[in-house]
């Protein structure tokens, strides 16, 4: 993805100059290593701050809805699938958004890298396949493949599925990826172990709702946890309430989730809630042959009935 930045600036500047769009949504360089900040550009100065590298993990589809302007968005494979979902769900009209597609080779896992080096990380630079991490005393070189976010390592849709223009030629899609090894492990546990596993997984949750808010699917005007009439979930830190939030949120995303990883990335306490969403993704794939956000012509699996839908569980 080296070199994308210049291309993105060029495209953004042309789109604004030709009044194709009123605003370009992308990333600017963050103030910390391995962090970029989503931003909008309407001026040449702002365009100049746009960047692209392996730290653009936030899903920009999240920033498209409820806008009046015509916007261009820099979209990775997963972002583009969420844009498709937005269009299907009438959150945005296809002609309001100009999609600048980014063939993506994956985003790097900030937490993983932090855990792999001693001391505070002061700088990170990258080439196509390597990541160089600097601390006060040392410099470490990683293969990018080693330090990808898990969802990127497992990604089978790196190229945008919908776009008006591409930043570069398509990248090779990964094949032979076993997406669900960890999910199968949980499925094999007995009920008690499963319960304990999730109690443990969710125990650090502080209910900041970063996962929900980072998720492009979570656009409900009032989330069920915030409803007062009726109140569905307790607002304290009781494990039952915390679990109810996470499981229900996962269900609300069933058949819509693209495994973009924004939820896990956003979590300040490092909960892998993708273990929930991916189980539902796996079920959708196994039972309905469905993958979310690949086509504008199909409604999500749980939104349609087909005569051959599995029904063996109904007695």
């Amino acid at each position: 993805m080296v070199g994308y930045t210049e291309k993105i600036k060029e495209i953004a500047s042309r789109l604004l100059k030709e009044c194709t769009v009123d605003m370009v949504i992308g990333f600017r360089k963050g103030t910390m290593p391995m962090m970029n900040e989503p931003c909008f550009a309407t001026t040449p100065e702002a365009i100049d701050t746009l960047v692209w590298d392996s730290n653009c993990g936030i899903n920009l589809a999240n920033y498209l809805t409820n806008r009046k302007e015509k916007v261009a968005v820099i979209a990775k494979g997963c972002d583009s699938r969420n844009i498709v979902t937005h269009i299907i769900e009438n959150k945005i009209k296809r002609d309001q958004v100009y999609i600048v597609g980014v063939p993506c080779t994956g985003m790097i896992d900030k937490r993983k890298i932090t855990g792999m080096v001693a001391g505070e990380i002061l700088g990170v630079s990258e080439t196509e396949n390597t990541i160089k991490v600097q601390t006060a005393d040392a410099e470490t070189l990683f293969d990018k493949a080693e330090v990808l976010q898990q969802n990127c390592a497992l990604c089978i849709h790196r190229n945008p599925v919908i776009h008006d223009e591409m930043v570069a030629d398509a990248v090779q899609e990964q094949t032979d990826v076993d997406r669900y090894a960890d999910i199968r492990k949980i499925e094999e546990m007995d009920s008690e172990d499963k319960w304990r596993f999730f109690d443990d997984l969710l125990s650090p949750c502080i209910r900041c709702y970063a996962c929900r808010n980072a998720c492009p699917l979570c656009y409900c005007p009032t989330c069920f946890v915030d409803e007062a009439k009726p109140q569905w979930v307790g607002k304290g830190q009781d494990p039952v309430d915390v679990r109810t939030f996470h499981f229900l949120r996962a269900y609300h995303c069933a058949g819509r989730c693209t495994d973009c990883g924004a939820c896990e990335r956003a979590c300040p306490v490092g909960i892998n809630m993708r273990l929930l969403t991916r189980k539902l993704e796996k079920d959708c794939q196994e039972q309905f042959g469905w993958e979310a956000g690949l086509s504008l012509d199909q409604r999500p699996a749980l939104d349609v009935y087909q005569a051959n839908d599995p029904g063996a569980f109904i007695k």
Partner: protein
Amino acid sequence: MELMGIEPDRLHFSWISSAESTKFVKVVKEVTEKVKAIGPNNHFIKDTAKVA
């Protein structure tokens, strides 16, 4: 639900027409027997407040 750790026998789906009274009785019997066999589920009970 199963993934979360709710025993599979606790959740049943059935399609019963309002005319199928015998099937209804049969299913209810089956469900209650199965749930009784697993025993109570205490996972979803919050600790009660400390008022005696």
